[in-house]
Protein backbone atom coordinates (compact mmCIF):
# COMPACT_ATOMS: atom_id res chain seq x y z
CA UNK A 1 0.00 0.00 0.00
CA UNK A 2 1.21 3.45 -0.80
CA UNK A 3 1.97 5.64 2.13
CA UNK A 4 1.18 9.24 1.63
CA UNK A 5 3.56 11.14 3.85
CA UNK A 6 1.28 14.15 3.89
CA UNK A 7 -1.79 12.25 4.92
CA UNK A 8 -2.91 13.29 8.39
CA UNK A 9 -5.56 10.88 9.60
CA UNK A 10 -8.46 12.03 11.74
CA UNK A 11 -8.68 9.80 14.76
CA UNK A 12 -11.54 9.74 17.22
CA UNK A 13 -10.83 8.24 20.62
CA UNK A 14 -13.68 7.44 22.96
CA UNK A 15 -12.33 7.32 26.50
CA UNK A 16 -14.15 6.26 29.60
CA UNK A 17 -14.18 8.92 32.27
CA UNK A 18 -12.76 6.83 35.08
CA UNK A 19 -9.78 5.02 33.64
CA UNK A 20 -8.80 5.93 30.11
CA UNK A 21 -9.65 9.62 30.19
CA UNK A 22 -7.65 9.83 33.40
CA UNK A 23 -4.92 7.81 31.69
CA UNK A 24 -4.93 10.34 28.87
CA UNK A 25 -4.69 13.13 31.42
CA UNK A 26 -1.78 11.34 33.04
CA UNK A 27 0.06 11.07 29.78
CA UNK A 28 -0.42 14.82 29.52
CA UNK A 29 0.79 15.37 33.05
CA UNK A 30 3.86 13.31 32.22
CA UNK A 31 4.32 15.23 28.95
CA UNK A 32 4.23 12.07 26.86
CA UNK A 33 3.71 12.96 23.26
CA UNK A 34 1.19 11.50 20.92
CA UNK A 35 -0.01 12.92 17.63
CA UNK A 36 -2.46 15.81 17.39
CA UNK A 37 -4.52 13.63 15.08
CA UNK A 38 -6.06 12.00 18.13
CA UNK A 39 -9.10 13.80 19.51
CA UNK A 40 -10.68 12.45 22.64
CA UNK A 41 -14.37 12.27 23.44
CA UNK A 42 -15.17 11.67 27.07
CA UNK A 43 -17.85 9.12 27.84
CA UNK A 44 -18.83 7.89 31.31
CA UNK A 45 -17.97 4.30 30.46
CA UNK A 46 -16.74 2.49 27.39
CA UNK A 47 -20.12 0.76 27.35
CA UNK A 48 -21.67 4.13 26.48
CA UNK A 49 -20.11 3.92 23.03
CA UNK A 50 -22.85 3.07 20.63
CA UNK A 51 -21.78 1.40 17.38
CA UNK A 52 -23.68 4.23 15.74
CA UNK A 53 -21.09 6.69 17.08
CA UNK A 54 -18.31 4.69 15.49
CA UNK A 55 -20.01 4.57 12.12
CA UNK A 56 -20.90 8.21 12.45
CA UNK A 57 -17.25 9.07 12.94
CA UNK A 58 -16.30 7.18 9.81
CA UNK A 59 -19.14 8.81 7.93
CA UNK A 60 -18.00 12.26 8.90
CA UNK A 61 -14.44 11.73 7.85
CA UNK A 62 -12.65 9.88 10.63
CA UNK A 63 -9.93 7.57 9.42
CA UNK A 64 -9.67 5.58 12.61
CA UNK A 65 -11.74 5.05 15.73
CA UNK A 66 -10.38 3.76 19.01
CA UNK A 67 -12.26 3.00 22.18
CA UNK A 68 -10.48 2.99 25.50
CA UNK A 69 -11.90 1.69 28.72
CA UNK A 70 -10.94 0.39 32.13
CA UNK A 71 -9.29 -2.99 32.20
CA UNK A 72 -11.79 -5.82 32.41
CA UNK A 73 -12.72 -6.29 36.05
CA UNK A 74 -11.85 -2.70 36.87
CA UNK A 75 -14.92 -1.03 35.46
CA UNK A 76 -16.16 1.79 37.64
CA UNK A 77 -19.62 0.49 36.94
CA UNK A 78 -18.56 -3.13 37.61
CA UNK A 79 -19.51 -4.65 34.31
CA UNK A 80 -19.70 -1.95 31.67
CA UNK A 81 -16.50 -2.83 29.89
CA UNK A 82 -17.46 -6.49 29.74
CA UNK A 83 -20.45 -5.48 27.65
CA UNK A 84 -18.21 -3.19 25.64
CA UNK A 85 -15.87 -6.05 24.95
CA UNK A 86 -18.60 -8.23 23.52
CA UNK A 87 -20.35 -5.54 21.57
CA UNK A 88 -17.24 -4.07 20.09
CA UNK A 89 -15.67 -7.42 19.28
CA UNK A 90 -18.77 -8.33 17.33
CA UNK A 91 -18.99 -4.95 15.68
CA UNK A 92 -15.36 -4.93 14.61
CA UNK A 93 -15.75 -8.44 13.33
CA UNK A 94 -18.74 -7.30 11.29
CA UNK A 95 -16.86 -4.31 9.88
CA UNK A 96 -14.07 -6.66 8.94
CA UNK A 97 -16.62 -8.96 7.35
CA UNK A 98 -17.83 -6.07 5.23
CA UNK A 99 -14.30 -5.46 4.07
CA UNK A 100 -13.54 -2.42 6.20
CA UNK A 101 -9.84 -2.36 7.03
CA UNK A 102 -9.25 -3.95 10.43
CA UNK A 103 -6.67 -1.47 11.56
CA UNK A 104 -9.08 1.42 11.44
CA UNK A 105 -10.77 0.20 14.58
CA UNK A 106 -9.32 -0.67 17.93
CA UNK A 107 -10.26 -1.23 21.53
CA UNK A 108 -7.70 -0.85 24.28
CA UNK A 109 -7.84 -1.08 28.02
CA UNK A 110 -6.01 1.82 29.59
CA UNK A 111 -6.11 2.38 33.31
CA UNK A 112 -5.83 5.71 35.04
CA UNK A 113 -2.25 4.79 35.86
CA UNK A 114 -1.24 3.94 32.33
CA UNK A 115 -0.38 7.34 30.92
CA UNK A 116 2.58 5.84 29.10
CA UNK A 117 0.44 3.10 27.63
CA UNK A 118 -2.10 5.63 26.46
CA UNK A 119 0.52 7.60 24.59
CA UNK A 120 2.08 4.44 23.16
CA UNK A 121 -1.29 3.12 22.02
CA UNK A 122 -2.17 6.40 20.35
CA UNK A 123 1.21 6.62 18.62
CA UNK A 124 0.89 3.11 17.34
CA UNK A 125 -2.71 3.46 16.27
CA UNK A 126 -2.07 6.71 14.45
CA UNK A 127 0.78 5.09 12.57
CA UNK A 128 -1.34 2.07 11.69
CA UNK A 129 -4.10 4.28 10.35
CA UNK A 130 -1.65 6.50 8.53
CA UNK A 131 -0.36 3.44 6.73
CA UNK A 132 -3.88 2.57 5.61
CA UNK A 133 -4.41 5.95 4.05
CA UNK A 134 -7.69 7.83 4.05
CA UNK A 135 -10.89 6.01 4.91
CA UNK A 136 -12.62 5.39 1.61
CA UNK A 137 -14.65 2.29 2.26
CA UNK A 138 -16.83 3.68 5.02
CA UNK A 139 -16.95 7.36 4.28
CA UNK A 140 -19.86 9.46 3.18
CA UNK A 141 -18.82 11.29 0.02
CA UNK A 142 -21.11 14.13 0.90
CA UNK A 143 -19.03 14.82 3.99
CA UNK A 144 -15.68 14.78 2.24
CA UNK A 145 -13.80 18.00 2.76
CA UNK A 146 -13.65 20.15 -0.31
Amino acid at each position, binding site marked *: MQVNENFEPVIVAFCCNWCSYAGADLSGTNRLNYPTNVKIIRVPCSCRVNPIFILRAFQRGADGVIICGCHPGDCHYTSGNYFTRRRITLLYSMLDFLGIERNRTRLEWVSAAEGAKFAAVMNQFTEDVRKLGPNRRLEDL*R*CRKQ
Partner: protein
Amino acid sequence: MFRISAEKLNDLFDRIASKQTLYIPVDREDKAAEYKKYESGMTLSSALNTVRSAKDFFFPQTENLAEFRLSGKTIEVKDIRSEHEDFVIFGVRACDARSFGILDSVFLSEPVDTFYKNRRDHGTIVTMACTRPEETCFCTTFGINPTMPGGDVSVFPDGTGYSFLANTEKGKEFMAEISDMLEEGNPAQLAKVQENTRNILKRLPLANLKTDSFGGERLMKHFSSEKWAELSESCIGCGTCTFVCPTCQCYDIRDFDTGNGIKRFRCWDSCMYSDFTKMAHGNSRNSQLERFRQRFMHKLVYHPSNHEGEFGCVGCGRCLSKCPISMNIVKVMKALEDK
Protein backbone atom coordinates in the same frame (compact mmCIF):
# COMPACT_ATOMS: atom_id res chain seq x y z
CA MET B 1 -40.09 -0.26 -40.77
CA PHE B 2 -36.42 -1.04 -40.49
CA ARG B 3 -34.82 -4.04 -39.01
CA ILE B 4 -31.57 -5.25 -37.54
CA SER B 5 -30.68 -8.90 -37.10
CA ALA B 6 -30.13 -10.17 -33.60
CA GLU B 7 -26.39 -10.78 -34.16
CA LYS B 8 -25.86 -7.15 -34.99
CA LEU B 9 -27.68 -5.79 -31.97
CA ASN B 10 -24.50 -5.23 -30.01
CA ASP B 11 -22.95 -3.35 -32.91
CA LEU B 12 -25.95 -1.10 -32.75
CA PHE B 13 -25.47 -0.64 -29.00
CA ASP B 14 -21.83 0.22 -29.56
CA ARG B 15 -22.87 2.83 -32.09
CA ILE B 16 -25.44 4.41 -29.81
CA ALA B 17 -23.11 4.30 -26.82
CA SER B 18 -20.44 6.10 -28.84
CA LYS B 19 -22.75 9.10 -29.15
CA GLN B 20 -24.58 9.21 -25.86
CA THR B 21 -25.04 7.23 -22.69
CA LEU B 22 -27.01 4.09 -23.30
CA TYR B 23 -28.82 2.04 -20.71
CA ILE B 24 -29.99 -1.47 -21.43
CA PRO B 25 -31.54 -4.15 -19.23
CA VAL B 26 -29.00 -6.85 -18.39
CA ASP B 27 -29.18 -9.97 -16.29
CA ARG B 28 -27.57 -9.89 -12.87
CA GLU B 29 -25.94 -12.87 -11.24
CA ASP B 30 -29.21 -13.68 -9.51
CA LYS B 31 -30.92 -13.72 -12.96
CA ALA B 32 -32.94 -10.66 -12.13
CA ALA B 33 -32.67 -7.90 -14.72
CA GLU B 34 -31.65 -4.31 -14.13
CA TYR B 35 -30.79 -1.34 -16.27
CA LYS B 36 -27.06 -0.85 -16.60
CA LYS B 37 -25.02 1.71 -18.40
CA TYR B 38 -24.03 -0.06 -21.58
CA GLU B 39 -20.47 -1.17 -21.96
CA SER B 40 -19.25 -3.03 -24.99
CA GLY B 41 -19.99 -6.73 -24.79
CA MET B 42 -23.01 -6.56 -22.50
CA THR B 43 -25.90 -8.79 -23.42
CA LEU B 44 -29.45 -7.57 -23.55
CA SER B 45 -31.51 -9.32 -20.91
CA SER B 46 -34.11 -11.77 -22.09
CA ALA B 47 -36.19 -11.18 -18.99
CA LEU B 48 -39.57 -9.61 -19.50
CA ASN B 49 -38.88 -6.74 -17.18
CA THR B 50 -36.41 -5.21 -14.77
CA VAL B 51 -36.83 -5.38 -11.00
CA ARG B 52 -36.68 -1.63 -10.70
CA SER B 53 -38.78 0.25 -13.16
CA ALA B 54 -37.45 2.68 -15.75
CA LYS B 55 -38.81 5.66 -13.82
CA ASP B 56 -35.43 5.84 -12.05
CA PHE B 57 -33.99 7.54 -15.12
CA PHE B 58 -36.25 10.54 -14.79
CA PHE B 59 -37.08 10.39 -11.12
CA PRO B 60 -34.15 8.83 -9.34
CA GLN B 61 -34.45 7.53 -5.78
CA THR B 62 -32.37 10.37 -4.43
CA GLU B 63 -31.56 13.62 -6.09
CA ASN B 64 -29.71 16.67 -4.79
CA LEU B 65 -31.69 19.86 -5.04
CA ALA B 66 -29.53 22.55 -3.54
CA GLU B 67 -26.67 23.23 -1.20
CA PHE B 68 -26.31 25.79 1.56
CA ARG B 69 -23.32 26.85 3.46
CA LEU B 70 -23.09 28.83 6.65
CA SER B 71 -20.31 31.35 6.51
CA GLY B 72 -20.11 33.38 9.65
CA LYS B 73 -23.68 34.29 10.33
CA THR B 74 -24.91 34.32 6.72
CA ILE B 75 -26.31 31.54 4.59
CA GLU B 76 -24.99 31.04 1.10
CA VAL B 77 -27.24 29.07 -1.26
CA LYS B 78 -25.67 27.17 -4.10
CA ASP B 79 -27.70 26.24 -7.18
CA ILE B 80 -26.39 22.88 -8.24
CA ARG B 81 -28.67 22.36 -11.21
CA SER B 82 -26.96 21.63 -14.47
CA GLU B 83 -28.07 20.51 -17.88
CA HIS B 84 -28.40 16.73 -17.96
CA GLU B 85 -26.47 14.79 -20.58
CA ASP B 86 -28.31 13.06 -23.40
CA PHE B 87 -29.09 9.44 -22.83
CA VAL B 88 -30.97 6.55 -24.33
CA ILE B 89 -32.94 3.91 -22.47
CA PHE B 90 -33.29 0.82 -24.55
CA GLY B 91 -35.74 -1.97 -24.00
CA VAL B 92 -38.46 -0.21 -22.03
CA ARG B 93 -41.64 -2.26 -21.97
CA ALA B 94 -45.04 -0.86 -22.85
CA CYS B 95 -46.09 -0.66 -19.21
CA ASP B 96 -43.08 1.40 -18.14
CA ALA B 97 -43.42 3.51 -21.29
CA ARG B 98 -46.94 4.36 -20.24
CA SER B 99 -45.76 5.17 -16.74
CA PHE B 100 -43.75 8.10 -18.08
CA GLY B 101 -47.00 9.65 -19.20
CA ILE B 102 -48.40 9.25 -15.74
CA LEU B 103 -45.28 10.78 -14.19
CA ASP B 104 -45.45 13.60 -16.75
CA SER B 105 -48.97 14.39 -15.72
CA VAL B 106 -47.66 15.07 -12.24
CA PHE B 107 -44.21 16.50 -12.76
CA LEU B 108 -44.75 18.45 -15.95
CA SER B 109 -47.99 20.11 -14.98
CA GLU B 110 -47.59 23.54 -13.45
CA PRO B 111 -45.46 24.18 -11.55
CA VAL B 112 -43.11 22.14 -13.69
CA ASP B 113 -40.57 20.06 -11.85
CA THR B 114 -37.40 21.28 -13.59
CA PHE B 115 -35.28 18.42 -12.34
CA TYR B 116 -37.65 15.94 -13.89
CA LYS B 117 -38.08 17.95 -17.06
CA ASN B 118 -34.35 18.29 -17.51
CA ARG B 119 -33.94 14.52 -17.50
CA ARG B 120 -37.03 13.97 -19.61
CA ASP B 121 -35.83 16.39 -22.26
CA HIS B 122 -32.51 14.66 -22.58
CA GLY B 123 -33.73 11.09 -22.50
CA THR B 124 -34.69 9.07 -25.55
CA ILE B 125 -36.95 6.14 -24.81
CA VAL B 126 -36.56 3.09 -26.98
CA THR B 127 -39.28 0.62 -26.11
CA MET B 128 -39.49 -3.09 -26.74
CA ALA B 129 -42.63 -4.95 -27.64
CA CYS B 130 -43.48 -7.93 -25.42
CA THR B 131 -43.54 -11.43 -26.84
CA ARG B 132 -43.60 -13.49 -23.68
CA PRO B 133 -45.86 -11.85 -21.11
CA GLU B 134 -45.86 -13.26 -17.59
CA GLU B 135 -48.76 -14.50 -15.52
CA THR B 136 -48.48 -11.34 -13.43
CA CYS B 137 -49.01 -9.02 -16.40
CA PHE B 138 -52.25 -7.05 -16.58
CA CYS B 139 -51.31 -4.00 -18.63
CA THR B 140 -54.22 -4.64 -20.96
CA THR B 141 -56.51 -3.86 -18.04
CA PHE B 142 -55.33 -0.27 -18.39
CA GLY B 143 -55.63 -0.27 -22.15
CA ILE B 144 -51.98 -0.82 -22.84
CA ASN B 145 -51.03 -2.82 -25.87
CA PRO B 146 -47.75 -4.54 -25.18
CA THR B 147 -47.25 -5.35 -28.82
CA MET B 148 -47.26 -1.63 -29.59
CA PRO B 149 -45.11 -0.26 -26.80
CA GLY B 150 -44.80 3.42 -27.71
CA GLY B 151 -41.94 5.62 -26.54
CA ASP B 152 -39.75 7.66 -28.89
CA VAL B 153 -38.85 4.57 -30.82
CA SER B 154 -40.60 1.21 -30.69
CA VAL B 155 -38.65 -1.96 -31.20
CA PHE B 156 -40.36 -5.16 -32.23
CA PRO B 157 -38.56 -8.45 -31.79
CA ASP B 158 -39.47 -11.04 -34.36
CA GLY B 159 -37.38 -13.96 -33.16
CA THR B 160 -34.30 -13.40 -35.31
CA GLY B 161 -34.05 -9.66 -35.25
CA TYR B 162 -35.61 -6.38 -34.22
CA SER B 163 -37.69 -3.94 -36.20
CA PHE B 164 -37.59 -0.25 -35.38
CA LEU B 165 -40.32 2.34 -35.64
CA ALA B 166 -39.90 5.99 -34.76
CA ASN B 167 -42.89 7.51 -32.97
CA THR B 168 -41.67 11.01 -32.20
CA GLU B 169 -39.34 13.69 -33.53
CA LYS B 170 -36.75 12.60 -31.01
CA GLY B 171 -37.27 9.09 -32.25
CA LYS B 172 -36.70 10.08 -35.81
CA GLU B 173 -33.43 11.78 -34.89
CA PHE B 174 -32.38 8.64 -33.11
CA MET B 175 -33.26 6.53 -36.13
CA ALA B 176 -31.34 8.84 -38.46
CA GLU B 177 -28.21 8.25 -36.42
CA ILE B 178 -28.42 4.52 -36.88
CA SER B 179 -30.14 4.25 -40.23
CA ASP B 180 -27.03 2.97 -41.97
CA MET B 181 -27.06 -0.12 -39.76
CA LEU B 182 -30.66 -1.02 -40.50
CA GLU B 183 -32.07 -3.07 -43.32
CA GLU B 184 -35.57 -3.51 -44.68
CA GLY B 185 -38.05 -5.01 -42.25
CA ASN B 186 -39.89 -8.30 -42.55
CA PRO B 187 -43.52 -7.38 -41.85
CA ALA B 188 -44.82 -10.88 -42.35
CA GLN B 189 -42.56 -12.43 -39.75
CA LEU B 190 -43.34 -9.62 -37.33
CA ALA B 191 -47.07 -9.95 -37.85
CA LYS B 192 -46.85 -13.61 -36.97
CA VAL B 193 -45.02 -12.87 -33.75
CA GLN B 194 -47.51 -10.18 -32.83
CA GLU B 195 -50.42 -12.43 -33.53
CA ASN B 196 -48.89 -15.06 -31.31
CA THR B 197 -48.43 -12.52 -28.51
CA ARG B 198 -52.01 -11.35 -28.81
CA ASN B 199 -53.18 -14.90 -28.38
CA ILE B 200 -51.16 -15.30 -25.23
CA LEU B 201 -52.48 -12.01 -23.88
CA LYS B 202 -55.99 -13.39 -24.12
CA ARG B 203 -54.97 -16.41 -22.08
CA LEU B 204 -53.30 -14.45 -19.28
CA PRO B 205 -54.80 -15.32 -15.88
CA LEU B 206 -55.46 -11.64 -15.18
CA ALA B 207 -56.78 -10.89 -18.66
CA ASN B 208 -60.27 -10.38 -17.36
CA LEU B 209 -59.41 -7.82 -14.71
CA LYS B 210 -61.49 -4.72 -15.36
CA THR B 211 -61.32 -1.14 -14.17
CA ASP B 212 -65.04 -0.63 -14.56
CA SER B 213 -65.62 -0.53 -10.82
CA PHE B 214 -63.04 2.21 -10.28
CA GLY B 215 -62.52 5.83 -11.14
CA GLY B 216 -63.03 9.24 -9.55
CA GLU B 217 -66.77 8.95 -9.15
CA ARG B 218 -66.45 5.88 -6.92
CA LEU B 219 -64.61 7.71 -4.16
CA MET B 220 -66.95 7.42 -1.21
CA LYS B 221 -68.01 3.89 -1.97
CA HIS B 222 -64.49 2.60 -2.00
CA PHE B 223 -63.15 4.83 0.74
CA SER B 224 -65.68 3.55 3.21
CA SER B 225 -65.48 -0.06 2.11
CA GLU B 226 -65.26 -2.56 4.91
CA LYS B 227 -62.83 -4.63 2.88
CA TRP B 228 -59.82 -2.47 3.71
CA ALA B 229 -59.39 -3.93 7.16
CA GLU B 230 -59.04 -7.43 5.85
CA LEU B 231 -56.93 -6.42 2.87
CA SER B 232 -54.48 -4.43 4.92
CA GLU B 233 -54.27 -6.65 7.98
CA SER B 234 -51.07 -8.41 6.96
CA CYS B 235 -49.40 -5.45 5.25
CA ILE B 236 -46.03 -4.96 6.92
CA GLY B 237 -45.81 -1.34 5.86
CA CYS B 238 -42.65 -1.61 3.80
CA GLY B 239 -42.02 0.35 0.67
CA THR B 240 -41.38 -2.48 -1.75
CA CYS B 241 -44.52 -1.99 -3.83
CA THR B 242 -43.92 1.74 -3.98
CA PHE B 243 -40.29 1.53 -4.90
CA VAL B 244 -40.67 -1.05 -7.65
CA CYS B 245 -43.74 0.74 -8.98
CA PRO B 246 -43.17 2.67 -12.22
CA THR B 247 -45.85 5.22 -11.43
CA CYS B 248 -45.37 6.04 -7.75
CA GLN B 249 -44.05 9.54 -7.62
CA CYS B 250 -44.14 10.65 -3.98
CA TYR B 251 -40.99 12.04 -2.51
CA ASP B 252 -39.70 13.65 0.64
CA ILE B 253 -37.34 16.60 0.80
CA ARG B 254 -34.66 16.39 3.41
CA ASP B 255 -31.61 18.28 4.52
CA PHE B 256 -28.34 16.60 5.26
CA ASP B 257 -25.75 18.39 7.33
CA THR B 258 -22.40 17.33 5.93
CA GLY B 259 -20.50 19.25 8.55
CA ASN B 260 -19.32 21.60 5.83
CA GLY B 261 -22.73 22.71 4.71
CA ILE B 262 -26.21 21.45 4.06
CA LYS B 263 -27.22 19.32 1.14
CA ARG B 264 -30.90 19.46 0.36
CA PHE B 265 -32.07 16.40 -1.48
CA ARG B 266 -35.25 14.64 -2.30
CA CYS B 267 -35.80 10.94 -2.05
CA TRP B 268 -38.61 8.57 -2.78
CA ASP B 269 -41.15 8.22 -0.05
CA SER B 270 -43.85 5.69 0.37
CA CYS B 271 -47.39 6.26 1.54
CA MET B 272 -47.06 2.87 3.22
CA TYR B 273 -44.55 4.37 5.67
CA SER B 274 -45.70 5.45 9.09
CA ASP B 275 -43.93 8.79 8.78
CA PHE B 276 -45.28 9.62 5.33
CA THR B 277 -46.41 13.26 5.14
CA LYS B 278 -45.64 13.72 8.78
CA MET B 279 -46.42 17.26 9.76
CA ALA B 280 -46.07 19.38 12.83
CA HIS B 281 -49.24 18.00 14.32
CA GLY B 282 -48.24 14.45 13.59
CA ASN B 283 -49.30 12.03 10.91
CA SER B 284 -52.38 12.31 8.81
CA ARG B 285 -52.81 8.56 8.41
CA ASN B 286 -52.02 6.80 11.63
CA SER B 287 -52.97 3.21 10.95
CA GLN B 288 -51.67 0.85 8.35
CA LEU B 289 -55.24 0.49 7.15
CA GLU B 290 -55.39 4.19 6.27
CA ARG B 291 -51.98 4.10 4.65
CA PHE B 292 -52.76 0.99 2.69
CA ARG B 293 -56.05 2.44 1.56
CA GLN B 294 -54.32 5.64 0.50
CA ARG B 295 -52.00 3.81 -1.83
CA PHE B 296 -54.72 1.97 -3.69
CA MET B 297 -57.26 4.75 -3.56
CA HIS B 298 -54.65 6.97 -5.13
CA LYS B 299 -54.01 4.57 -7.97
CA LEU B 300 -57.58 3.57 -8.61
CA VAL B 301 -59.66 6.56 -7.60
CA TYR B 302 -57.81 9.81 -6.91
CA HIS B 303 -55.49 9.59 -9.88
CA PRO B 304 -58.19 9.02 -12.50
CA SER B 305 -60.24 11.68 -10.75
CA ASN B 306 -57.43 14.22 -11.09
CA HIS B 307 -56.06 13.11 -14.44
CA GLU B 308 -58.91 12.62 -16.82
CA GLY B 309 -59.65 9.06 -15.99
CA GLU B 310 -56.11 7.82 -16.22
CA PHE B 311 -55.37 5.20 -13.57
CA GLY B 312 -52.18 5.33 -11.55
CA CYS B 313 -51.25 1.78 -12.49
CA VAL B 314 -49.85 0.29 -15.65
CA GLY B 315 -50.23 -3.39 -14.79
CA CYS B 316 -46.51 -4.19 -14.92
CA GLY B 317 -46.96 -6.81 -12.19
CA ARG B 318 -43.83 -5.89 -10.23
CA CYS B 319 -45.69 -5.47 -6.96
CA LEU B 320 -47.34 -8.84 -7.52
CA SER B 321 -44.05 -10.66 -7.55
CA LYS B 322 -42.20 -8.49 -5.03
CA CYS B 323 -44.61 -7.88 -2.15
CA PRO B 324 -43.24 -9.76 0.89
CA ILE B 325 -46.72 -10.88 1.84
CA SER B 326 -48.18 -11.08 -1.65
CA MET B 327 -50.81 -8.43 -1.17
CA ASN B 328 -51.24 -6.30 -4.28
CA ILE B 329 -53.41 -4.10 -6.43
CA VAL B 330 -54.97 -7.04 -8.24
CA LYS B 331 -56.25 -8.52 -4.99
CA VAL B 332 -57.50 -5.11 -3.95
CA MET B 333 -59.30 -4.58 -7.25
CA LYS B 334 -60.88 -8.00 -7.13
CA ALA B 335 -62.03 -7.46 -3.55
CA LEU B 336 -63.52 -4.06 -4.28
CA GLU B 337 -64.98 -4.59 -7.73
CA ASP B 338 -68.73 -4.59 -8.23
CA LYS B 339 -70.00 -8.11 -7.89
